[in-house]
């Protein structure tokens, strides 16, 4: 689980999804505390919602970001898929983007990425 380094004194944290391959991506974004309590939950897709506002940075430090990815390729199985979700503050990308990649199947592919918000 890679750390997502935030500036706690800076702006709101947003999560920006970008897609590097021609598939349909569906995702749920969760921010959880260390007891599994859901602090934030929202869903989106490559065709609809690609930007999420997670909240103030100082409220996120110490929490986990968990993204469940579902990938469907209209063209079918055997193609490479790749996408990123990058935490942003004041328009600047923070380190450790959440990256999912793999090979498409006849139905759907599944991936999960997780990171922990920390501060410098």
């Amino acid at each position: 689980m890679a750390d997502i380094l935030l500036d706690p004194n800076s702006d709101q944290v947003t999560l920006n999804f970008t897609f590097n391959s021609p598939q349909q991506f569906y995702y749920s974004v969760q921010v959880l505390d260390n007891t599994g309590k859901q602090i934030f939950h929202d869903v989106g897709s490559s065709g609809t919602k690609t930007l999420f506002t997670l909240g103030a940075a100082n409220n996120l430090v110490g929490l986990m970001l968990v993204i469940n990815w579902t990938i469907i390729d209209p063209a079918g199985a055997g193609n490479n898929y790749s996408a990123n979700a990058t935490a942003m503050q004041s328009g600047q990308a923070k380190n450790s983007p959440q990256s999912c990649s793999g090979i498409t199947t006849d139905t759907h592919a599944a991936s999960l990425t997780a990171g922990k918000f920390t501060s410098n």
Partner: protein
Amino acid sequence: MIKKMIMIKYLITPIIWLMFPILSTAQSSTDSIKAGWGVLNFAVPESPAFKILGVSPSDIMRPTTTRDIAVSVGNYFLTNGGAIPKDLAVEIAPSLFNPKLSLADYNANKWWYNSTISIGTKQNPDGSYAAAVGVSTKIIDKADLRSNSSMISFDDVIGPKINAAMTDETNAIAFEMFRQGIPYDTAFNRVSRALTDTSDKNYKVYHTKIDSCILAKGINANSISQYRDSLKNALWNATVLEIGFASLFNSQDSLIKNISSISQIGFWLTYGHRLGKKGQLLLGVNGNIRDTGAQKLNDYNINVGARIYYGGNDLKAFVDGEVISQSYSEPIYQSDLGIEGTFFGGLWASFSLGIKKVDNQSIVFTPALTLNLANGEKKSNSK
């Protein structure tokens, strides 16, 4: 009933006998027979440069990054200077210029991403060299599922449901680990690795749990592939327009600086138009113009063809006509009537009865039976 069977036997037997001599020679590889046009040669070649060179390279370089191209070209010139390679075969897909190609990007410039640039060279028997460059592209492709609104909408309905079920299940798996004393961040880290690493001991376990959860919520994930297959079947006659062209240059020796101006131009066009649910009209034009001796680009041949299909993806009847026109000989006219079908998912067969006429000569009867082992996919339109 028996009388009827005997009649059918007497009708079929002579046709089979007539076709038998052709059967043995008409069998062909998937390279020479393209779907849609059958034995008529109107399909746009994937690599027009190789077609105009008259080569079928077995080893084609397909660079995956622009850096690959730069390094290969740099290394070649460092080693060989300004010499033409003896047998170069390169295919470049324009998508390599945009490695971060999303579905939205793809659909914004689909024709560009469905193009192929081919470059080839060869050494002629007399020691001279030939180099060719070609481009092929699909201007229209209504059979492309990545831009099919029905397929996209179907996925947009089922995708979020699958994702919600997956989220519930991965949360449950992490919670179970947490109950056993494993911190949440470690638990999600393990789930993350197990879902994508096929060598992980939990790869199958977690995927099975997620699939069971999806099924328990009444979601049929297999409906995605079933819907895709039904669309493919319905789109056998979708409208398509493909074009290709290539230019050939000669050089009396291996020096790039001695390459002459264009000595041959080849072009290919095929258009498929949907005629209701069961029909398709195919139009094709191809040809080339070349030098003869000292005369520049004065020898030509042009082929024009049309075919009409009626039926479905598995079985359809066709009627077609073709005119082959050449600068130094009489035109050839050909017409066929036949049926074409796919069997056992991969065997493609075509039966036709044709006539051929060369100017003042008498009409020649040309029956044909063509068998082709396809790759398991049903044949689509003129690709």
